């Protein structure tokens, strides 16, 4: 495979990490075989909460995938050179995230062997059809762009001109994947929690905070374990993007809260009540949601105040807070909150089971494995070219 030889040479630490990931993947795969035999009944999902952890991770990761645009856009449209060597890392992150998205959809299918029916019987009135189109298109674009860019880099030449239109196309395409994912939810008449036009903008804002926060963390790891350094300035600019996106995200959430509670429509209020104070005695998500809120508030303080934001010792913690806060919000609250209460007004608890969590962990591990291998290749190419410290 293309430049793959660079991924099979590494330190003991590198191999230990790879094997740890493979172990998790193996355990999750066994759990998936169990699910395949028994059915989705082995998960915590039910008649009342029919989508759960799998679909929630998918939704969150579409955002991470889309966030690659936050380094691609400044570099290609504004010639912001500081991001020059980050773009490939952003694109590799996108490829890994989209792959995870597809896997999460796949493991959620009741009849996985029939999944190609989506292509065999294309149904343009279904948002799921468009989600498939946009996600696979985005995967293709990022795979093509990163492949071409990296092979040009290896030969120490500029990327060919024909790739430019694909790069430009990938920018609106990134926005489209998360918009279409929001449309999956907000076109459903009976699900008041999702029935809001701000869902897509909110998805994008939270994605552009969580994605670059993860990228900052990855950059910091990269410069610890390799000789490649993306540079302080690139990291600081990324943190500025996280700051604005997080502010906009929180602003959107507050707009939603105002609309729901000032209008006072019970069907819209109930979901928020379930998430933040509990409903019909069920309050199992309440601690999670307030943790998410507290992390958001604290991270905003650490982001908005320049002294804290520019302190690269504090920044990784801030990024972890942003990531966790948004993961709880989208990975737990969004889906479970949307299904609770049910259309008949019932509140039914959903608790993911151990095999379900292991399958989730395995897909995340596959994503991390992909990122590790991709980054290893990209960094090896750069090291062989004699890139050292970026500034």
């Amino acid at each position: 495979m293309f430049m793959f030889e660079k991924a099979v040479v590494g330190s003991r630490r590198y191999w230990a990490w790879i094997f740890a990931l493979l172990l998790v993947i193996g355990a999750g795969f066994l759990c998936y075989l169990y699910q395949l035999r028994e059915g989705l009944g082995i998960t915590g999902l039910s008649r009342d909460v029919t989508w759960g952890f799998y679909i929630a991770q998918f939704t969150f990761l579409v955002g991470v995938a889309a966030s690659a645009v936050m380094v691609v856009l400044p570099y290609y449209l504004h010639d912001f050179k500081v991001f020059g060597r980050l773009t490939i890392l952003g694109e590799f992150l996108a490829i890994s995230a989209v792959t995870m998205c597809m896997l999460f959809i796949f493991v959620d299918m009741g009849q996985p062997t029939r999944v190609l029916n989506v292509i065999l019987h294309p149904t343009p009135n279904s948002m799921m059809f468009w989600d498939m189109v946009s996600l696979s298109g985005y995967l293709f674009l990022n795979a093509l762009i990163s492949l071409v860019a990296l092979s040009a880099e290896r030969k120490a030449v500029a990327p060919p001109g024909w790739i430019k239109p694909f790069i430009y196309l990938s920018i609106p395409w990134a926005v489209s994947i998360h918009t279409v994912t929001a449309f999956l939810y907000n076109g459903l008449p009976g699900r008041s929690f999702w029935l809001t036009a701000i869902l897509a903008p909110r998805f994008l804002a939270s994605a552009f905070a969580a994605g670059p926060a993860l990228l900052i963390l990855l950059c910091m790891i990269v410069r610890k374990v390799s000789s490649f350094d993306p540079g302080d300035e690139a990291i600081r600019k990324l943190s500025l993007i996280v700051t604005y996106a997080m502010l906009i995200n929180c602003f959107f959430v507050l707009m939603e809260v105002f609309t729901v509670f000032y209008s006072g429509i019970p069907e819209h209020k109930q979901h928020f009540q379930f998430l933040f104070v509990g409903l019909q005695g069920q309050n199992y998500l309440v601690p999670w949601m307030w943790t998410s809120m507290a992390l958001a508030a604290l991270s905003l303080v650490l982001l908005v105040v320049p002294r804290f934001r520019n302190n690269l010792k504090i920044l990784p913690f801030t990024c972890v807070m942003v990531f966790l806060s948004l993961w709880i919000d989208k990975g737990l609250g969004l889906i479970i909150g949307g299904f609770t209460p049910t259309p008949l007004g019932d509140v039914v608890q959903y608790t993911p089971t151990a095999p379900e969590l292991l399958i989730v962990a395995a897909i995340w591990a596959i994503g991390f494995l992909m990122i590790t291998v991709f980054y290893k290749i990209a960094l090896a190419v750069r090291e062989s070219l004699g890139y050292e410290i970026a500034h």
Partner: protein
Amino acid sequence: MSTDRRTFLGVMGLGTLALAGEAALGAAASGEATGHGSKASRRWAMVIQPYKCLKEEGCKACTEACHKVHNVPSFPDRKHEVKWIWKEPYEKAFAAEHERVAESLREKPVLVFCNHCNNPPCVRVCPTKATWKREDGVVMMDWHRCIGCRYCVAACPYGSRSFNWLDPRPHIEKITPDYPTRTKGVVEKCTLCEERLSEGKLPACVEACPEKALVFGDLNDASSEVSGLLEENFTIRRKPELGTDPEIYYVVGGKPDVHV
């Protein structure tokens, strides 16, 4: 799409209809001899008269009949329940938002099942056309095409769709060989007994009801019993504000001893 199985089945269905004879079907289905027009011009609907349904407390005749003929499994765990027609308290069925519900309705069971909406969100979202709306109003399911994504379950504002979380077959008390059983991983729901309609029979629930609380018929036929009931009574539908346009109507009020 032009020559796929569904179209083929549709043509076959029309053929069967023609053979069975329009008049016979019309008479059986609506309980009155009418039978004008083709299948396409029919609009099947159901009118439910809760005051009749309430006469016999705890009666489950319709549910039992339906679940028996359709091989609906009964899972002990609420999480995995599969239901086609069942009873919900009035407040839940109609999302009553106030607490001063009349004694005659409070906590009283109301029959709920697929509303066979004219504008069905489940059909709109299905990525494989495994669920679709027939011209006569029946919202159909193809259990061999369904990929089990459960998007339709999320889209249905009535909670009328069930998913087979586990293999249903071991949980069917006695399998009715005339009707298919389902496999794990597919969605199912009431199909208005389309298999019985094509034989000129009434839906199983309608036939089973000892009080004749469920009335089935063709809304496009002004002289049908359902049209008459809608004309003479105040009727409501579940969540009409969502624009799904259900074809299941509920008569409001009425006394147990009064027959319409």
